[in-house]
């Protein structure tokens, strides 16, 4: 087809496009378009515009609207065009309305009828175009009007129509699930359509349905797997190949569906292992689409029940992605890595340098993706590096949306993992300074609260150090020219509370600074209010301390200004300040106690302190107070007012702690997290992110899940405190282990770790720059376990978060053993000395646990009770190691064994026996899952899942024969037939029988499935078979040609009409010269004549 390919457009349109293309400025373009709109407006409303012209006008309208100009004057004409008989015109009309109108537009009602009619058309092209419009234009109310026809079309002989009907139904489902809920079975039916294209299209709605409700589609797992298998084995017609890949888009969709179905379902996942493994092997990683399928495989593997073999292949694929030069692949690799580290965290180790390369890449997208990954793998050891990087990046970008996101992530990470308060405050300062107004106000409240509360009761010196360092840093920062409002509020508050607390700065210095703030940001009421209150606090503290208050002149002028302020709030605060200054020390002391912002204010609602006064007044003859409810006639209203009073009491005068947050602060803005705040008062600090990993596993303890996304502040700050006071905070009931000894141990083993790491790295990759290595070491060097939150949870009283390092001598032992055998077992070494989340609490991933126990290279796991107060926990496989190390180990062993008096020693050595130890110390829940996992492993190792075998048996000879016939229809029919045949046999599900019967209906070659093989043979033998299809083709072509002829004649007619009009115009011209009134009468017969002429020619 030539470039004009039948979509003829006039020169005018071409000129328009050209002139717009050549326009030098937006203004010029607008001018051209506006004049075009004028022309169109005029022409389009002329009566009797020929259809051909009209069609072009409409196209021009669409074009104009694409350029951003309003074309609503032409909408009605587009709607009219859809009524037209000519397909060409109709198509244009539909195209225009789908682009112009939305489903709630007033004109839709005019189209519904046309759509209904067109859906019934004999010409499938008309049906297609109507279906296209259905997708876009039918809303919830109008669905019933077309629904029956759409359902009918699901059985249309043309596959294009079936495909589109499915999509339309899918669209209805998206718009209003309830309207088509009874038709969902149709999707299942269409899955075994004899056209693979239709089957592929059906996967779209099924994907949506399964996303919403996994459990009701579990029975389809086998079907999906067998379809995928057939696709991967190239059983589909060649036409579906794309860049030598068999139907990759279908494969991707299927893998996505399998990922959903297999998530947390061991049984379903087992069925998938073989086929996913096959695809891993078969995928051609040189082409883009091959990598797309590979990536989808990784996603699938990381979503379904873990299988070590598949995880290994996934890790392999990821490393190929990361090593690739293509940024796209790196991006996908980083993304995939982020998915996989949830399951096997140790994989990140191998790719640390690649990740760092991505972090330094000029490509922004890649950088952001990498930050996302880092965010996922942050723990207390690398938080400083990661947050620093994030802040640097945050400063460098302008995109507010992403700035907000990354700022809130920084805050979140800082709150969870901050190694010291100093660092935390500095980090928060940076965040506020550079993204202040983008940060949620709650973060600011949180910061104030942290500074106010410090670490808790028993460490006042550290608290005051923290405060004075905060004050100092804020005084320094105030020198910056422009600060965000939120940050200024924090600064004012802190200066007010603690500015003079340590006596380093005089009251006049601080008040001077505060006055400067209030003046410099004179258009920010909130900041001014904070500043006034801060001033008041400082003066109050001064008075209470018995010092003379000496108001600065600028402070006086400020007060005067505020006393007359339009803002009642400011005015109020200024008056309060004035009043406070006039009081004596004692009174001030009681209304504004120093450093009392953390104390709860008790509101005496009964106002009992007034009792004496009232008594006095009544004695003097005053009327006693009648409660409002007892006053006549105003019952309801007064009730209301009562409530109001209530409210008011909490909003009224607040000298104290106006920002004491009542809820835990959420660092994330999304509303999804809102619900969880209700759980606040529960004292046990469970960290939200733990449930991160557990989401993929069914046996998640419910409380872990419910705390997802919630920031537990109380836990956070305690955690920063001295790391040593873990004992006795245990609220968890699972085991009574307690870690004895905290951070010093951690540090020791960490440094050991990173040291070995560095030597390991440098041994392997000499050319890497030292900075990168350093970065790598700081990012990855620490504990490599997944636990994000529980790393912080030193405090969290989770059993055994520090099991490994509970003994000083032990950790040195570890280092020693690492040094003795550094190369043979690198992963083992890396895993040493790490807090093992695995065995903590509601075991996020029991399967991994098991692996850990069974394979010698993996992690330390369970813990054994030592005594009720302090349990020395010792991972079994470390034990094994120790028994092998000759010297010094003896002493160690006996030491531990004495602790393990109740568990038999023999259990400590071997693979399966260790498991028992683990079980004995774990909650029953975990025990169960471990047992199950043993089963999984057995199943996983034996490669034969039942389905493929059965499938082969079933297909047997005919499956192979089927590859030969050239026509895809039949081939695929058998294909799908066979895939469904295998179903009832394997799972005995009865609901596939209807499916098969429908197949019976649709297979035209035979009635019974057992004759299918025979038929195939016949076909293969029949030399004319392919010719036959050609004849069919010819018949089809003939009919289209016929239609084309009709179309042509219609066009002729149109032209004739045009001519007619020309003549008419001429006649009119003549008539006008003679008798103006007669023209209509004359024109009529002329028209008829010409139509007759045309008809005769036909």
């Amino acid at each position, binding site marked *: *087809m*030539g*470039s*004009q*390919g*039948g*979509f003829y457009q006039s020169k005018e349109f071409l000129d328009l496009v050209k002139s717009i*293309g050549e326009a030098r400025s937006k203004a010029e373009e607008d001018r051209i378009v506006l004049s075009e709109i004028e022309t169109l407006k005029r022409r389009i409303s002329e009566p009797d515009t020929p259809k051909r012209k009209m069609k072009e006008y409409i196209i021009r309208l669409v*074009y104009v609207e*694409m*350029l*951003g100009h309003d074309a609503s004057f032409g909408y009605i004409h587009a709607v009219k065009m859809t009524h037209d008989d000519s*397909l060409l015109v109709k*198509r*244009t009309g539909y*195209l225009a309305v789908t*682009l112009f*109108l939305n489903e709630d537009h007033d004109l839709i009602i005019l189209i519904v009828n046309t759509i209904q009619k067109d859906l019934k058309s004999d010409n499938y*092209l008309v049906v297609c175009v109507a279906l*296209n419009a259905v*997708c876009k234009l039918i809303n919830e109310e109008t669905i019933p009007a077309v629904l029956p026809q759409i359902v009918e079309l699901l059985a249309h002989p043309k596959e294009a129509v079936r*495909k*589109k009907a499915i*999509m*339309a139904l*899918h669209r209805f489902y998206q718009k209003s699930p309830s309207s088509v809920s009874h038709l969902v079975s149709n999707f299942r039916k269409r899955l075994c359509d004899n056209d693979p*294209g239709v089957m592929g*299209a059906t996967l*779209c709605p099924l994907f*949506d349905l399964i996303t919403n409700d996994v459990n009701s589609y579990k029975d389809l797992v086998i079907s999906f797997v067998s379809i995928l298998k057939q696709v991967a084995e190239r059983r589909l017609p060649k036409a579906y190949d*794309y860049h030598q890949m068999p139907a990759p*888009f279908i494969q*991707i969709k299927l893998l*996505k569906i399998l990922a959903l179905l297999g998530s947390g379902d061991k049984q379903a996942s087992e069925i998938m292992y073989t086929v996913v493994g096959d695809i891993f092997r078969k995928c051609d990683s040189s082409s*883009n*689409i091959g*990598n*797309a399928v590979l*990536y*989808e495989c990784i996603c699938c593997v990381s979503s379904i029940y873990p299988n070590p073999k598949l995880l290994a292949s996934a890790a392999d694929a990821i490393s190929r992605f990361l090593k690739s030069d293509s*940024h*796209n692949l790196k*991006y*996908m690799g980083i993304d995939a890595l982020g998915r996989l580290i949830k399951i096997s965290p140790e994989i990140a180790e191998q790719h640390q340098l690649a990740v760092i390369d991505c972090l330094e*890449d000029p*490509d*922004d*997208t*890649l950088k952001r993706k990498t930050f996302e990954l880092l965010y996922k793998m942050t723990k207390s050891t690398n938080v400083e590096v990661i947050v620093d990087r994030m802040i640097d990046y945050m400063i460098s970008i302008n*995109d*507010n949306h*992403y700035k907000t996101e990354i700022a809130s992530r920084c805050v979140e990470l800082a709150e969870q993992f901050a190694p010291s308060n100093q660092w935390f405050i500095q980090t928060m300062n940076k965040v506020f300074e550079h993204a202040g107004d983008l940060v949620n106000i709650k973060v600011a409240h949180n910061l104030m609260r942290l500074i106010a509360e410090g670490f808790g009761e028993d460490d006042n010196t550290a608290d005051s150090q923290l405060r004075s360092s905060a004050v100092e840093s804020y005084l320094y920062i105030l020198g910056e020219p422009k600060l965000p409002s939120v940050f200024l509020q924090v600064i004012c508050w802190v200066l007010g509370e603690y500015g003079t607390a340590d006596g380093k700065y005089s009251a006049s210095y601080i008040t001077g600074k505060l006055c400067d703030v209030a003046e410099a940001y004179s258009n920010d009421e909130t900041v001014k209010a904070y500043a006034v209150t801060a001033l008041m606090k400082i003066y109050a503290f001064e008075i209470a301390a018995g010092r003379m208050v000496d108001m600065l002149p600028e402070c006086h002028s400020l007060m005067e200004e505020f006393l007359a302020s339009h803002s009642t709030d400011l005015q109020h605060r200024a008056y309060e300040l004035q009043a406070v200054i006039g009081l004596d020390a004692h009174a001030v002391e009681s209304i504004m106690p120093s450093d009392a912002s953390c104390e709860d204010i008790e509101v005496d609602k009964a106002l009992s302190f007034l009792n004496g006064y009232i008594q006095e007044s009544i004695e003097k003859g005053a009327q006693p107070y009648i409660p409002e409810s007892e006053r006549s006639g105003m019952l309801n209203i007064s009730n209301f007012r009562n409530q109001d009073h209530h409210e008011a009491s909490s909003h009224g005068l607040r000298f104290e702690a106006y920002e004491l947050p009542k809820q835990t602060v959420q660092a994330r803005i999304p509303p999804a997290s809102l619900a969880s705040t209700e759980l606040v008062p529960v004292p046990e600090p469970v960290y939200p992110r733990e449930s991160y990993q557990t989401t993929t596993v069914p046996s998640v303890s419910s409380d872990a899940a419910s705390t997802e996304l919630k920031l537990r502040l109380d836990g956070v700050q305690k955690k920063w405190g001295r790391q040593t006071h873990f004992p006795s905070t245990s609220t968890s009931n699972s085991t009574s282990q307690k870690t004895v000894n905290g951070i010093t141990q951690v540090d020791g083993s960490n440094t050991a770790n990173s040291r070995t790491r560095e030597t390991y790295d440098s041994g392997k990759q000499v050319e890497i720059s030292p900075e990168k290595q350093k970065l790598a070491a700081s990012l990855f060097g620490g504990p490599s376990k997944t636990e994000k939150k529980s790393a912080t949870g030193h405090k969290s009283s989770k059993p055994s978060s520090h099991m490994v390092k509970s003994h000083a001598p032990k950790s040195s032992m570890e280092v020693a053993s690492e040094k003795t055998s550094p190369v043979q077992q690198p992963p083992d070494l890396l895993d040493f000395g790490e807090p093992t989340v695995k065995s903590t609490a509601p075991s996020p991933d029991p399967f991994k646990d098991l692996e850990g126990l069974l394979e010698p290279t993996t992690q330390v796991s369970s813990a054994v009770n030592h005594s009720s107060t302090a349990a020395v926990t010792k991972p079994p496989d470390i034990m094994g190691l120790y028994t092998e190390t000759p010297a010094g180990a003896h002493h160690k062993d006996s030491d531990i064994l004495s602790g393990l008096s109740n568990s038999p020693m023999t259990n400590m050595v071997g693979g399966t026996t260790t498991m028992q130890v683990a079980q004995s110390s774990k909650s029953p829940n975990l025990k169960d899952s471990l047992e199950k996992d043993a089963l999984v492993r057995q199943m996983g190792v034996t490669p034969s899942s039942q389905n493929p075998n059965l499938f082969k048996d079933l297909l047997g000879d005919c499956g192979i024969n089927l590859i030969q016939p050239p026509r895809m229809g039949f081939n695929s029919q058998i294909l799908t037939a066979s895939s469904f045949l295998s179903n009832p046999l394997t799972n005995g599900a009865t609901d596939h029988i209807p499916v098969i019967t429908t197949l019976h209906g649709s297979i035209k070659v035979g009635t019974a499935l057992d004759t299918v093989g025979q038929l195939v043979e016949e076909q293969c033998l029949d030399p004319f078979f392919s010719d036959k299809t050609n004849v069919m083709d*010819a018949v089809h072509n*003939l009919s*289209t*040609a016929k239609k*084309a*002829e009709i*179309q*042509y004649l219609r066009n002729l007619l149109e032209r004739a009409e045009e001519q007619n009009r020309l003549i008419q115009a001429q006649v009119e011209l003549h008539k006008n010269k003679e008798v103006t009134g007669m023209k209509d009468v004359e024109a009529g017969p002329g028209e008829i004549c010409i139509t007759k002429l045309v008809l005769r020619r036909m």
Partner: protein
Amino acid sequence: MIKAVMVMNTQGKSRLAKFYEYLSVEKQQELIRGVFSVLCSRAENVSNFIDAESIFGLDSRLVYKHFATLYFVFVFDSSENELAVLDLIQVFVETLDKCFQNVCELDIVFNYSKIHTILDEMVFGGQVVETSSSEIMKAVEEISKCFLSPFLLSCVKMHVDDVRFSTFALFLIRINR
């Protein structure tokens, strides 16, 4: 689900814009401008993916591909795979190429409605329905046959006879393929 398909040239002129959820004309223009401002600031040899959440709201990704003077942009949500969409763009462009023999920007400009037809065959209501460019071509040609070229028309005039017409039509159709 695919949220939008855009084709724009390197000067930011919109050549095709199709949104699968209704948006007002102003909003569409804003998005197109937003996309272009991101696209034109991208260096060469970087990835084809852009984090589009700041432009299109939550859960949206953007994949683009640069061909000569044109950017092909697909915006979609997490139910699609980035690399696959990249290939979808490839399919789209391959189809255009087959359709116009060495497609260039002008072809797209001047065959506005045909481009829409092709796209409609590929992406239907936001879902990918067809990914084989030959299948798409077939469907588009089927539609094009309704508008027979002037040459064919003049031939048809001469062969009114059914049989001769049909053989001739067949011949023509073969040529077309």
